[in-house]
C-alpha cells in the first residue's frame, strides 16, 4: 500500500506552505531522507524529505500551489502502484490523521532577513520578494501579491518600489516603527514624504491649512419602499416638466377672523375645527372650478381638464411624503371638506390609508407654513399641471389710509407646468385665489 507524503507543519502559526519546486519526478526511486520538494513558509524555505525508501508514485499538487499543512502532497509505493486513493479531495481535502508522522524536514536552507513593517499579514511573501523589500524599503507584508494564492513575489515588490513615494530616512524609520502609511505625495522636497506626513492622506493638502477631516462611518440608508417611489416620482417630475413657480401673498386678516369666529362659536353649531389649511383648500377648489386649465393632467400629447376637483393634500409622515386625495372636493362645503381631510391625514400618519385614496388627484396643495416656511418651489405631482404651496403667517407692511400698517399675510407659491400653462393665466389664477381668500366670506357665499 502506498505511503502518503504530507505537507509538514512548520511551527504552530503556519497554516499552509507554498510548494516551490518538485525535486523528483514521478517514478523516481527514493531513499529515506531524499529531498523530494522544496516548500516555503513566510519565514524560510525548507525541503520535504522522503519518509522511507521507495518509488514516488504520485504528485498531487503543482509548483506554486499553496497547500494546507498536513495534507498529502505525494505518495510513495511500489512502481506502478495506484495511489489515487490518497489524493486529497479538491475541496481542501481531509487532513491526514494526525497520528501520521510528519515527514522529517531538513533545517532551513535559506535564512531570511527580518522585514521592516508591521502591516496586515499577506498570504505570504517569497524570499526573493522579501529581499527586494528589505533593499527598497517596501513593506512587502501589506502588498497585494500577484503570485500563487496571492503570495507576494519579487515583481510585486519591484512595482511597489517604483510607484511608492520617496520617504526621507527619518520617515522610513518612523513608518517601520509605527506602521503608519505614507501618502502618495509628501510635503517635503519634490514631494518627499517626511515623518510628519505619515498617516495623512495627502500631506500637501494638509499643509495648506485644510480643516481636519472628520472621521466616522457614514450611515447607509438603502432606497426602498415609499422613499424609492418618492425618489422616482420627484426625479421624473423635474426631468419631464417645465416647472415655473410664482409667489403672491394675501392679507390673511379676514380668514384669521373667520377662523377665530368658527373656533369660538363653531362647536355650538356643530362645526368641525376648521383650519387655515381647510380654508385655503376650499378657496382653491372653488377657484379651480373656474380655472379648468390648472385642474388638469398633461399626458404628453394632450391635456385632460376635469370638471371636478380631486384635491391632493401633501402630508409629512414618518415613512415619508404622502399625498392623500379628497375625491370630489368640488362637491363639498367647507365643513365637509374639513371633515374629509382630517381622517385622511390621520390614516396616512397611522400608515393604514386605503391605497385608492392616494391616487386620482387633479390638483395638489402642500402646506409648509407650520414649519415656518414663507415661500418655496413646490414640485409638481405629475401628471397634474399645477400645485399650490402654502406658506406661514408673516407680518407684511402695507400702505393703508396713508400710513404703513403691518398685516398678517400668507404667501402662496404656485408651480405650474409651463409646457401647458402659461405664466399669465397662472398669475391670474393666483391673483384670483388671493382675492378670494382676502374676501373669504364672499367666496363662501358662492
Amino acid at each position, binding site marked *: 500500500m502506498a505511503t502518503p507524503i504530507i505537507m509538514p507543519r512548520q511551527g504552530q502559526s503556519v497554516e499552509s506552505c507554498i510548494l516551490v519546486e518538485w525535486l523528483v519526478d514521478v517514478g523516481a526511486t527514493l531513499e529515506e531522507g531524499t529531498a523530494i520538494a522544496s516548500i516555503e513558509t513566510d519565514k524560510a524555505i525548507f525541503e520535504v524529505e522522503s519518509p522511507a525508501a521507495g518509488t514516488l508514485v504520485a504528485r498531487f499538487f503543482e509548483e506554486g500551489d499553496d497547500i494546507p499543512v498536513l495534507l498529502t502532497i505525494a505518495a510513495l509505493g511500489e512502481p506502478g502502484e495506484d495511489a489515487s486513493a490518497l489524493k486529497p479531495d479538491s475541496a481542501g481535502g481531509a487532513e491526514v490523521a494526525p497520528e501520521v508522522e510528519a515527514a522529517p524536514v531538513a533545517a532551513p536552507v535559506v535564512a531570511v532577513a527580518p522585514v521592516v513593517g508591521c502591516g496586515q499579514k499577506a498570504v505570504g511573501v517569497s524570499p526573493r520578494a522579501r529581499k527586494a523589500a528589505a533593499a527598497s524599503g517596501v513593506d512587502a507584508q501589506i502588498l497585494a501579491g500577484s503570485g500563487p494564492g496571492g503570495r507576494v513575489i519579487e515583481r510585486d515588490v519591484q512595482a511597489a518600489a517604483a510607484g511608492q513615494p520617496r520617504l526621507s*530616512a527619518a*520617515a522610513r524609520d518612523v513608518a517601520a516603527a509605527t506602521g503608519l502609511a505614507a501618502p502618495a*505625495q509628501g510635503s517635503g522636497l519634490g514631494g518627499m514624504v517626511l*515623518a510628519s506626513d505619515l498617516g495623512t492622506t495627502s500631506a500637501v493638502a494638509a*499643509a495648506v491649512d485644510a480643516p481636519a477631516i472628520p472621521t466616522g462611518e457614514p450611515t447607509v440608508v438603502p432606497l426602498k419602499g415609499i422613499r424609492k417611489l418618492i425618489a422616482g416620482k420627484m426625479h421624473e417630475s423635474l426631468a419631464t416638466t417645465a416647472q415655473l413657480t410664482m409667489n403672491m401673498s394675501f392679507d390673511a386678516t379676514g380668514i384669521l377672523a373667520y377662523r377665530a369666529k368658527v373656533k369660538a362659536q363653531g362647536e355650538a353649531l356643530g362645526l368641525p375645527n376648521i383650519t387655515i389649511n381647510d380654508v385655503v383648500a376650499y378657496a382653491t377648489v372653488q377657484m379651480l372650478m373656474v380655472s379648468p386649465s390648472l385642474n388638469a393632467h398633461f399626458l404628453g400629447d394632450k391635456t385632460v381638464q376635469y370638471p371636478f376637483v380631486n384635491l391632493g393634500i401633501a402630508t409629512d409622515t414618518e415613512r415619508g411624503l404622502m399625498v392623500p386625495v379628497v375625491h370630489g372636493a368640488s362637491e363639498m362645503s367647507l365643513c365637509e371638506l374639513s371633515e374629509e381631510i382630517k381622517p385622511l391625514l390621520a390614516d396616512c400618519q397611522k400608515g393604514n390609508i386605503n391605497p385608492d385614496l392616494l391616487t386620482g388627484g387633479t390638483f395638489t396643495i402642500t402646506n409648509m407654513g407650520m414649519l415656518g416656511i414663507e415661500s418655496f418651489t413646490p414640485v409638481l405631482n405629475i401628471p397634474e399641471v399645477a400645485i399650490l404651496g402654502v406658506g406661514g403667517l408673516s407680518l407684511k407692511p402695507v400702505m393703508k389710509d396713508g400710513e404703513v400698517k403691518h398685516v398678517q399675510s400668507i404667501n402662496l407659491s404656485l408651480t405650474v407646468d409651463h409646457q401647458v400653462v402659461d405664466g399669465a393665466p397662472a398669475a391670474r389664477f393666483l391673483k384670483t385665489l388671493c382675492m378670494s381668500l382676502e374676501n373669504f366670506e364672499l367666496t363662501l357665499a358662492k
Partner: protein
Amino acid sequence: MKYDLIVIGSGPGGYVAAERAGEQGKKVLLIEKGELGGVCMNCGCVPSKTLLNSSKVYYYATHGEAYGVKSENVSFDLAAVIARKKKVVETLRKGVAGLMKRNKVTVVKGEAKLVSRREVCVGDEVYEGDAIMIAVGSSPAKPPIPGIDNDCVYDSTRLLDLETMPENLVVVGGGVIGCEFACFFGTLGVPVTVIEMLPEICPAVDPQIAKMLRQELTKRNITFHVGARVESIGKADVTFSVKDKKETIKASHVLVATGRTCNVNGLGLEDVKIDFDRRGIKVDDCCATNVPGVYAIGDVTGKQWLAHSATRMGEVVVHNLCGRPDHMRYDAIPGVIYTTPEVATVGLTEAQAKEQGIPVRVGKMPMAASGRFLAENEGGRGVCKVIVHAETSVLLGVHMIGGTCSEMAFGAAAMIESEMRVKEIEELVFPHPTVSELIRDTLIMTSH
C-alpha cells in the same frame, strides 16, 4: 492684449517669477514703477553687500599685519565705493532686462492698480491677465519718534548713496539692516552707536550667537545700547533712555532701521476685496490670496522679509500655474546677516524647539576647531550650533557665526529639507579643509 500672468513688482520675487513663467511659454507682463530688480537689487541686498565688501577690503588692508602683510597710507574713498556700487547695480539691472527680453516678458514702467481680479491698470492702460501676482515688496518703516523728519535722519535706501563719510552715526534698531550698516561704517572708523529696544540685538537669532555678534562688532568702533528706547532725534543728536536714565549722544547721521512695512497701499486691494491688513496680504501655502487668480509673494505678504523667500514664493506660484504642484515650506529658509563676522541660521532655534515642545539635543563647536577658519580668521571668533531631535536624530537647526558662514547655509538647508538624520549626514563627504566640515563635526559630536 491678454496675458497669462501679470506680475506687479520686479524685485527678486517678481522678476524671477516672470522669467520662469516666460520660460514655460506663458505670456507675462511685468509692471515696475521704479527700477528693475526692486529694493534687493537697487537699494538693498546687492548694494549693501557691495559696500560691505569694500569695507572688508579696507579692513584687511589696515589689519594685514596679523597675517604678515604690512601696508601704509591706506585710505577709503567713499565716493569711489558708491560709484562702484552703482556700476554693479547697473550691470545686474541690465542682466534682468536681458532676462526679460530673452523670456519674452513684456515690461511696463508705471504704478499698477488692480481694477478687478483679472485686470490691472497702469495709468490709463488696462491689462487683462488670467493670473495676477502681487510682488510689490516693502518700504522702510518710519517709527513715531520726535524729530524723525530731521535732515540728519536717513533710511537704509538714502544711506546707500552717501558720498561723504559721516562724522558719527547713530543706528536706531539693532536688526539685520542696522547691524550691517553699523559694521560698514564702524569698520571704516566712523564711531557708530546702535540703539536697540529689545534686550539683545537681532532678536530672531539664537541669543548666544546674537551676543557674540554684538561682542565682535564692538571691536569695530560700534557701541551698543540694548534695552534702550530712542526718545527724540535732534538736529545733530539722539536722546535715548535706558531704564528711565536719559542720555543724549551726538549724531551727524541717524539711520532708522526699525523694520519694514508692507507696501499694501495704493494698489486697489480694497476694491478687489483682497484680504490684507498693515501686516501684509494674507496668502495660503501656495501664495494664493482669498481672491481666485490673485497671488501675493514676498515682503508684501509679511511672511518673511527675505529676498530668497520671495523668489521661492514666486516660483511656487509659477509652478502651480504651470501644472506642477508645489507649496511653500518655511522651515528651512536660511537667514543671513552679512556683517563681519557673518551670521547664518537655518531651521529651529533651541528656544523655538522648546516652545514647540520638541525634545532636542544641542551641539556647539567653536569655529576655531576648523583648520581653515583658523588659517583665515586671525583672532576671529565663531561658533556652530546644531539642533537635533533628541529621539529621531533628525537635524532641525543650524546656527552659525564666524567668517563667511553665509555660504554654508544652503548645505544646512538642504539637510534639513531632506529631513536628514545625523546618521545620513555622517555619510556625506565634506571638502577638506573647509569651514563647512564644522557642521558635520558638531553633529557627530552631538550624537556620541
